[in-house]
């Protein structure tokens, strides 16, 4: 059976799995944003917390994904549904680039700008929301971009615990030793990653602070 035949015959299932994949990546990314960006802001204000926070995120990053899925299995509520579990794991992986880039973006704002802003009487929250975050936006977005591209790839492995997504086709193809089936899962995932990368890259450029032309 060739690739195109397989795709046309199974287009509904492929579309379904693609949506599942998008859902897992989307929700996990939103959760990671909600945790990672505040953590990045926190460690930029409390230097003492920087090392422990970054180290924890680093350690999570080094756990092999299959093992992490396994570790999380006994967790209450989360472990009951494979999708929940996959979303939690993907979120944990997305934390490091988000925390690190938020921190780097904020601390990378020009010292003179911060000094002038404090000196003219901006409160700490005005400094954060009017100066630091807008100027860090493109660096933070670069982190979001990395996180999403990693998530799209990692989410294929979630199929190993039955969470669905395009990984299901890849694992099925592997079991059947059928390249067409593998490709039917791998190609949409790759296209999704490329599309996300391009879109976020464009946004990143738009948000970067104006510089000399």
């Amino acid at each position, binding site marked *: 059976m060739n690739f195109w035949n397989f795709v046309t015959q199974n287009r509904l299932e492929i579309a379904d799995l693609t949506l599942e994949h998008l859902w897992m990546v989307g929700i996990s990314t939103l959760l990671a944003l909600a945790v990672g960006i505040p953590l990045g802001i926190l460690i930029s204000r409390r230097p003492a917390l920087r090392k422990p926070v970054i180290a924890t995120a680093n350690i999570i990053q080094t756990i092999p994904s299959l093992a992490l899925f396994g570790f999380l299995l006994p967790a209450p509520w989360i472990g009951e549904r494979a999708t929940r579990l996959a979303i939690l794991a993907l979120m944990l992986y997305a934390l490091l680039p988000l925390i690190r880039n938020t921190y780097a973006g904020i601390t990378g704002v*020009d*010292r*003179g*700008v*911060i*000094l*002038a*802003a*404090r*000196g*003219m*009487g*901006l*409160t700490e929250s*005005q400094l954060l929301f*009017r*100066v630091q975050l*807008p*100027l860090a936006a493109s660096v933070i977005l670069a982190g979001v971009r990395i996180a999403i591209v990693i998530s799209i790839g990692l989410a294929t492995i979630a199929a190993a615990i039955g969470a669905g997504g395009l990984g299901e086709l890849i694992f099925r193809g592997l079991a059947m030793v059928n390249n067409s089936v593998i490709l039917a899962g791998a190609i949409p995932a790759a296209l999704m990653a490329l599309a996300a990368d391009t879109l976020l890259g464009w946004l990143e450029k738009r948000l970067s*602070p*104006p*510089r*000399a*032309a």
Partner: protein
Amino acid sequence: MTTAAQNQNSTDPLIEFRNVEYQSSGREVLRGLNLAIHRGEVLVLLGRSGSGKTTALKLVNRLLKLSRGEVRVEGRDVREWNVIQLRRHIGYAIQEVGLFPHYTVERNVGLVLSLERWPKEKIRARVQELLHSVGLNPDVSSRYPHQLSGGQRQRVGVARALAADPPILLMDEPFGALDPLTRSDLQLGFLSLQRKLGKTVLFVTHDLHEALFLGTRIALLEEGRLVSLGSPEEFLNSSEPLVMKYVEAFGSVERARGNK
């Protein structure tokens, strides 16, 4: 004019350092500084790098916390001021300028006014007035900082420091990074503006030329201590060894005085 200023006798110093000490990671940056800055004068803090002049400046608007002694602004210890009110009461201009790169000139200059909830039209009019007074064409108000020359950026920085009409200005080598011609343009502009507005200015520089040109009085700092204090004329005729060294090092000062 604020109520605090009205309560104060007009001959009282506007800024006062009393036995001010400041330590940073074990190093004594200021060792018992006593200094009074009077209403309407330009007091220049002169000294080499590390002499403590920038530190002294930052103690006034509480960008740094003093270790011992007290700094008074309009007769009140700076620690008694609400820090945000204190800073909005004092204009601050620095060598790096620190314009917000993501804001137009108009938003840069008008930021504090918009935080103080001025209506939009009033802010716009005030920005135009300020740009005019620092010698900038009102057209620049819609530009971004990266579209300006170094001299224009520094003029915008001064306009921003003046935005809320603060009675006090702190200036930390504001013209230090400019080429000599632009610098002398800005010094002249600053001097005439200061005479018109009558601001009380604490001005940090390591450039004797600039100190003599702008200063009502010059305070020479060395290793965190006040070495000499007096008018430019007194400074030039001083018999204090360190001052004489300074004057010698800047052999061409007479020319500077001629310009003034």
